[in-house]
């Protein structure tokens, strides 16, 4: 873990130079590509990704002052310090962070910088996130899609889903339903128990 963080810190220092020379967008794109993620610039259809060997083409350098619109950091080792590279992206609309093992509640509290632009956010399978971190997503006013499937550490999924729907009324929440945690009433034996209880109460 320490080595991974040092690894990230090393990359952060290097990107200071990249930022000055090429700008924030290129620096962020370089960071994501070297973590084996994907980026897409505004107005473009194709995604820049690294291949299996970790190599990526340097064509993205052509888009020097074009904002980054979509970042796919799924299954990367991105953490709180790595988000430093993404924080300057003021026009980021789509952020996918599926199955990132180091994304936790503290990282979610940093996402408030995207409050004016973020439209889609995906946190599926990030095992360190709890319902407390999900409360920090209330800043994202324009969020339309939120994917929170397979979050194992979230307790009371049904209740959390209801509270999130109240918090973000215009957002579609995928991966958690309000029926999670409720027992089904179609089971005859359970219905019988409830009937007997009602009789004894009256």
């Amino acid at each position, binding site marked *: 873990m320490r080595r991974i963080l040092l690894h990230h810190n090393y990359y952060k220092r290097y990107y200071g130079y990249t930022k000055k020379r090429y700008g924030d967008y290129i620096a962020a794109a370089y960071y994501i590509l070297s973590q084996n993620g994907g980026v897409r610039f505004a107005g473009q259809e194709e995604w820049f990704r690294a291949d299996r060997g970790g190599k990526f083409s340097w064509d993205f350098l052509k888009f020097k002052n074009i904002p980054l619109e979509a970042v796919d950091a799924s299954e990367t080792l991105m953490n709180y310090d790595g988000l430093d590279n993404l924080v300057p992206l003021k026009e980021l609309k789509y952020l996918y962070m599926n199955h990132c093992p180091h994304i936790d509640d503290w990282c979610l509290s940093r996402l408030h910088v995207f409050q004016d632009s973020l439209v889609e956010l995906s946190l599926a399978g990030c095992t360190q996130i709890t319902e407390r971190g999900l*409360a920090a997503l209330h800043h994202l006013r324009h969020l339309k899609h939120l994917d929170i499937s397979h979050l194992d550490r979230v307790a009371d999924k049904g209740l959390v889903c209801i509270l999130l729907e109240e918090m973000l009324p215009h957002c579609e929440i995928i991966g958690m339903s309000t029926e999670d945690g409720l027992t089904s009433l179609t089971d005859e034996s359970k219905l019988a128990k409830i009937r007997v209880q009602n009789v004894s109460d009256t």
Partner: protein
Amino acid sequence: MNFASVAVFRKIRPPDFGCMVRITACISPYNNFSRSISTSKLLCKQEDVFKDLEKEFVKFRQKVKDVLPGSNWTPFHVTPGLPPERADIVIVGGGVMGWSIAYWLKKKEMIRDAVRVVVVERDPSYSRASTVLSVGGIRQQFSMPENIQMSLFGCSFLRNINEHLGVVNEEPIDIQYNPCGYLFVANESGATILEENYRIQKEEGAKVVLLTPTKLKEKFPWVNTDGVALASYGLENEGWFDPWSLLNAFRRKALSMGVYQCFGEVTGFKYSTREMVTSDGEPVVFKRIHHVNVQMPDSKEYQPVECALVVNAAGAWSGKVAEMAGIGTGLPNSVDAVKLPVEPRKRFVYVFHSPDGPGLDCPLLIDYTGVYFRREGLAGNYIAGLSPTEEEEPSISNLEVDYNFFHEKIWPDLASRVPTFENLKVKSAWAGYYDYNTFDQNAIIGPHPLVNNMYFATGFSGHGLQHSPATGRAVAELILDTCFKTIDLSAFSFGRLCYGEKALERNIV
């Protein structure tokens, strides 16, 4: 050891083989009629011996093991839980501050076991300790840069808590951090101070934003913005967490690094005095603490621990501990006469339920009247409190809760600020002590000018928990490096009490 062999003869008694000899004498072939058929005492003894022989052998083996070196047995009775006779640093008080200092001392020592640290705590159940009764908030919205820096460090410490306080083969630490932010609401008269504080906070790197009443209403529709001129909202690194987990994490890590823990009460110090004269010709009494008397719980027995330094992290009772060292007793108008101005102040925290209250996005809202509340859990429960004025200070003799205080002082302001709280129901409440600094409600960190080997880390007046990692590091730096290396906390020195210079913190809750 010679007396061990004496004890061997007294303690070890092999199973009673003597009776067997007697039995064989009885059953001799020449005594046909003297053999008794009924169950005589001797025959019973014989059966007993054979029945219990296994147990007797086990006892015998245990006694032999005790006598051999490597066992805990000594011929004299040693009271369990006594502190060591000699230590380098004795920390009075086992709350989050005391354990944080112990951890940082062990972390910063250059050689393993270079310093022997003993933490003395009076109450193993922590029933009256301020740490565990705290609401557990962490914020950067202070007016002093030092406080902001300490909170920022506290946040980065808590974020990487498993790196700092993780122990091999133990479960990872979860402090249950809620990143919901603090929202300070100010009226007309408080708006300028809020803006000034905001400027200082931005300079130090805190992520805070100012909200006008319209923006506030947009963000939090459940707030009633009547009377609100300005609000300041913390975006990152602000929220609340579980203080008990932090305390246990510090304690577990410090114990694993070799800190001695002792449950006992510090009842006095043995110090030597030296009459000296300052450069102005003023006579002062220079004291040096040599022993700390630690009394065992429920007993008159005490152990004088010989020590080099004493750290006063006793929280609400630091004033009493300082008096034991003779601080505050002296000729009036001299440095000797300056007492440690820390006293316990009781504060109530009420838990209530409101069905239509603010949802997941509810921050810790602090009104300009002083009333604060925050969400607790997911089921519509909230926690609220208020610091009473000087005249209304409740008695500190016990931790009983006064529910009238809530109904008279807190509920009206709560209901006017958040209209949905009009139909709330109080579920329960608790009370805890603030280690209140009556001089300027800010921390006192550093050595005493005359009792030079007593260091203070107290007087936080309600924001000690969030400053505990930074203070622990600062005191460890003072002790081991003799000066502050990371955050300069010389503004909190004891000297300011002598000169009468207040280091006022304007944002006290």
